[in-house]
C-alpha cells in the first residue's frame, strides 16, 4: 500500500513524487512513456507575461510576471493558488529539482524572483526570455560571441541563429550583441540525438574541442548547437569547455530535443535514487464514493494507495483527449478552458483560424481548487485526488511562458495535499 501514487513521469509528476518522498511517504509513480518533458527546450519557463508597446516587460521581475499573470488570467493556476503561494511553491520545487539533477550535471542555473528573465539563444533563431535553464544553457550577456556551425548540420544553422539573435537583441531586448557564425569541418550531418550520442565518445568530443579551440580565439563565449553528449553530457561539456577556455553555451533546442531527453533521463534516475517505486502504465481507476481506491496497471494488477496525484499532461502526453468532446483520459473528468467549461464543440469553434491567436481548446484541462483537487460541477471530484502540470486546465504556456513554473508549483502543492 502506497501513501501516494503519482500518475505521470514528466516534470510535474516527478516533482510531486520527490516532494512526497522528502516528506517520508511511500511513493509509487506510473509512467506510460515519455511526454512533453522529453521535448523540453532546456529552458525553465516560470513566468513571462507579454507586454504592450507602452509597457516593455523585459525589465520586469519574475515575481512581477507571476503577479501580472495571476491578475489577468483568472483560471491560470497562479491565480487559483494565489501568486504568493505559487512563488513559494516554485522556489521549493526548484530546490528539489536542483538536487535531483545534480548527479546528471544538469543542475539549473540559479534564479531570483526579483530578477528579470534573461535572454537565451534558441536553435530556431530567436532570443527568448527564460527564468532559468539546465546547466549547459546560458543567457547571452554581451561581449564577442562565436556561434558554431557543424558541417552538414541542417538542424542548427549558425548563420541564421546569429543573425536572428542579433536582430532580437536590438529590437526586443535593447542590447547591441556581437554574435558571429563560425564554420567547423566537424561532421554534424547526423540528426541531433545521433550527433549527441556520437559526442558521448570523448574521442569525438576531443576532436571537436581541438578544432573549436583553433577557430574561436579571442571570443568571450561560444554558442553551440544543443548536441554536446547525451548519457555522458557532463563529461562531453567539460571536455569542450576546458579546451576552449571560455563559457560554452548550448542553444535552447527545438524538436527533436537533446536537452529534453537528457532532462527526462535525469528525472528517471532521480526517481530511482529517491526510492520511488516505478509501476508502468495505468489504464483504469477504481473509485468508491468520494475516494479513489486504486488504479489498474496495464497488466491487470490493482495498485491501491491512500492518495493519488494526476500529472498525466495534456494532448501531447495524452492526459487530455479530444475527439469531438474533451475529457481527462484516465478518470473521464470534464475539462475547462481559460474561457470556462468546454462543451462538445467542433475544432473550428474552439481553435482559431490563425495559429498565433489564443485557442480555447489549447488551454483545456481539469478544473482545480487551490489545493489542486479536481472540481466537477463545483464540487471536489475525489477527496484524495490531486492534479499537477498540464493536465490542469485554464492556461497555455505559450502566452505566459510558465509551463515549468506551473509544473513545479502544482507538483509541490499536489503532493502536500495528498499527504495532508
Amino acid at each position, binding site marked *: 500500500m502506497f501513501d501516494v501514487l503519482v500518475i505521470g513521469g514528466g516534470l510535474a509528476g516527478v516533482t510531486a513524487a520527490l516532494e512526497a518522498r522528502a516528506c517520508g511517504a511511500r511513493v509509487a509513480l506510473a509512467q506510460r512513456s515519455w511526454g512533453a518533458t522529453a521535448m523540453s527546450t532546456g529552458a525553465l519557463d516560470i513566468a513571462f507575461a507579454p507586454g504592450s508597446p507602452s509597457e516593455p516587460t523585459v525589465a520586469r521581475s519574475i515575481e512581477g510576471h507571476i503577479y501580472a499573470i495571476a491578475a489577468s488570467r483568472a483560471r491560470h493556476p497562479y491565480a487559483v493558488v494565489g501568486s504568493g503561494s505559487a512563488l513559494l511553491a516554485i522556489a521549493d520545487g526548484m530546490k528539489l529539482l536542483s538536487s535531483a539533477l545534480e548527479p546528471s550535471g544538469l543542475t539549473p542555473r540559479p534564479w531570483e524572483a526579483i530578477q528579470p528573465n534573461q535572454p537565451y539563444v534558441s536553435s530556431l533563431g530567436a532570443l527568448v526570455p527564460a527564468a532559468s535553464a539546465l546547466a549547459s544553457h546560458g543567457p547571452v550577456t554581451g561581449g564577442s560571441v562565436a556561434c558554431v556551425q557543424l558541417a552538414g548540420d541542417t538542424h542548427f544553422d549558425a548563420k541564421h541563429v546569429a543573425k536572428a539573435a542579433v536582430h532580437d537583441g536590438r529590437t526586443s531586448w535593447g542590447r547591441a550583441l556581437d554574435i558571429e557564425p563560425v564554420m567547423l569541418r566537424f561532421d554534424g550531418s547526423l540528426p541531433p540525438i545521433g550527433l549527441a550520442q556520437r559526442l558521448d565518445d570523448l574521442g569525438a568530443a576531443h576532436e571537436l574541442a581541438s578544432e573549436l579551440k583553433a577557430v574561436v580565439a579571442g571570443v568571450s563565449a561560444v554558442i553551440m548547437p544543443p548536441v554536446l553528449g547525451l548519457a555522458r553530457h557532463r563529461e562531453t561539456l567539460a571536455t569542450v569547455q576546458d579546451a576552449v577556455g571560455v563559457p560554452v553555451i548550448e542553444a535552447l533546442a*527545438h524538436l527533436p530535443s537533446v536537452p529534453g531527453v537528457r532532462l527526462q533521463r535525469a528525472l528517471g534516475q532521480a526517481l530511482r535514487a529517491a526510492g520511488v517505486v516505478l509501476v508502468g502504465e495505468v489504464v483504469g481507476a477504481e473509485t468508491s464514493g468520494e475516494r479513489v481506491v486504486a488504479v489498474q496497471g496495464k497488466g491487470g494488477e490493482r495498485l491501491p494507495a491512500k492518495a493519488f496525484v494526476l500529472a498525466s499532461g495534456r494532448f501531447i502526453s*495524452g492526459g487530455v483527449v479530444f475527439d469531438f468532446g474533451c475529457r481527462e483520459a484516465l478518470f473521464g473528468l470534464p475539462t475547462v478552458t481559460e474561457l470556462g467549461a468546454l462543451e462538445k464543440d467542433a475544432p*473550428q469553434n474552439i*481553435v482559431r*483560424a490563425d495559429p498565433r491567436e489564443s485557442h480555447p481548446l489549447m488551454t483545456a484541462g481539469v478544473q482545480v481548487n487551490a489545493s489542486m483537487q479536481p472540481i466537477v460541477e463545483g464540487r471536489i471530484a475525489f477527496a484524495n485526488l490531486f492534479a499537477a502540470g498540464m493536465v490542469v486546465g485554464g492556461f497555455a504556456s505559450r502566452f505566459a511562458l510558465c509551463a515549468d513554473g506551473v509544473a513545479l508549483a502544482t507538483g509541490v502543492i499536489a503532493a502536500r495535499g495528498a499527504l495532508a
Partner: protein
Amino acid sequence: MKTDVLVIGGGSNGTGLARDLAKRGVKVMLCEMGDFARGATGASSAMIHGGPRYLLNDVETTKHSCVDSGYIQKIAQHLVFRIPFLVPVPKSFPYGRASLLLHDVYFDVYDRYSPYKNGIPHAKLSVEEMLRIEPGLVGDFWGGVTLDEWGIDPGRLCVLNAIDAVAHGATVATYTEVVGITRGSNGEVTGARVRRRGEATVQEIEAKVVVNCGGPWAEKLAGLTPDSAKVKLRPGKGVHLVYEKRLTNFAVICNAVDGREVFVMPYLNESWIGTTDDDFYGDLNDLSATHDEVAYLREAVEHVLPDIKHQRLISTRVGVRNTMHGWGVHEDVLSRGYRIIDHTAAGTPGFYSLVGGKLASYRIQAEEAADAVCVRLGVAARCTTHEDYLPGGDAIPDEVELTRAYPIDRLTARRLVHRHGALASRVLDIGRETATGYAVVDPAEPVLECELRYCIRHEMVKRLSDLTMRCRLGVGADQGMRGGLRAAQVFAEERGLDTTSMREELMGLLRSRWRAARPVMTGQQLAQAELVMTQYTGLWQLPTLNPVA
C-alpha cells in the same frame, strides 16, 4: 503595361490558355490573385478521369475527358499515375443478383472510351477476388467491378503550364488581383486594372481581349462588366479528408448515408476520402470543412472499411467547383461541361468567360477558348498543346541511374522524377552548391534542399507557402513542423530576406497548413498542433509581443 490578351486566373483553365496562346505567338499576360491552383484545381480530386458517373447524364463530358486525358498523359507523362478503382456491389443494391451484371454492362459502355485514355478494360470480380484485393472490406456484396483512372498533381500541372507559357513569351503575375475591367467608348474591352497583393496602387493593363478563367470566382469577375447576368454558376463545395498513409490498395467506391458515391483513394503516400458536393454561397476566400462534412465522409467509408476509424486523419482539402448553373436538379446531376461565353452580344466585345469544365479536359477547354480569341485577333496559328511536351515531360529518367549519380535514395529519386520528369537532374545538380544540398528538409514527402532551391529559382515562387503546391512541402502529418524552419532559411537565403521577413514567411506556411488541419484537429493531430504551436508560434511571436519602448 500592354498585351494582346489578358487571362484572369491561375488554375488549369487559365494557365492552359496562357500556354496555348503563347505557343501560337500571341502576346499574353496572366494575372492570378493568389498562387497557382489555389481554387477549384488545387482542391480537386487530382484525377484526369472520364468520370463514369457522367455517363448517365452527360456522355459528351465523358468522351471529351477521355480523349483529352490521353493527350495529358503524353505531354506530362511524369506527372500522371494510374489509380485502379474497385466498385464493390452491395447486396443492398436495388436489383438483387442482377446488380453485379448491371455494373458489368455499365462499365462495358465505359470501356469503349478507355482506349482514348490508355485505360485497362474493367473486370468483374467475385467476392473472394475482391477481398483478396481489399481484405479490409466488410459487408454483404454480390461482387465487384474494377476500372482504372489516372491521377495527376494538379498544382504542378498549372505551374508547368505557366512556366511553358513564360518560355514562349507570356507574362505571368501571381498575387495580382484584377479589380476592374476597362472599356472603350463602344463598350469594347481595353484592358484591366490590377493590384498586387500588399500594395495600394492600382496598375492599368492594356489588352485587346480579356478572358475570365476565374473558376468559382468567374461570376464575380464577370460582374466587373455591366452584363454579369451572362455568367451564372451553381458553385458546389467539395471536401476531401487527407489521411497520413495509404490505407487501401485500390481506390474504393463507397455509398454515403444519402446514397451518394464517396471514394477512398490512395494518392502518393496518402489516402483521400472525397468528396462532398453541396451548393455553396458563402465567402469563396474563407473556405473550411465543417464538422458535418467531416462526419459524413468518414461515415461513408467507415461502414465498409471499418479499420479506417483508427487511422490518422491529418488535414482537409476544400474547394468550390465552378459548375455551370442548372435549376431544380440535384448537385450530382449538374453537368461538368463547359462553355466559352463571348460577351459581345451583352455589350462588352473582347471579353470572354471560360466557365465550367473539368480538370481532365482542361487542355481542350483552353484550346477552344484560344481558338475563339485567335479568331477575334485574326491569328491563324493552330494549337499545338496536345503534341508539345510540358517542361520535363519529354523523357522519364531512370531512378536507379539517379541514385548512382547523386547521393539520394530510391524513394526520393522516384518522387523527383514524378514532379520534375526529365528535369530531375537539373534539380539535383543544384545540390552540389551547398554542403547540405541533398539533405532531406521535409521527411514526410521527402523534399530535398536542392529541390526547394530549384523551385524558388525557376518555378515562380513568391511566398514560402507556394512551395506546398510545387513540391508538397509541409503536407505530412507534422504539417511543416520539421521542414518549415529549414525551408524558411533556404527561402531567406535565396531571396536575401531579413529575420523579420523570414519569420513572416514561416508563419505564412504554418498558417496555411493550420487552416487545412483545423477541421480535423482531434486525437493525435491535435497533439501535433499543440507541438507545432509550442515549437514555433510560442518562440517566434515573442519579439512582437515584447517590444522595447
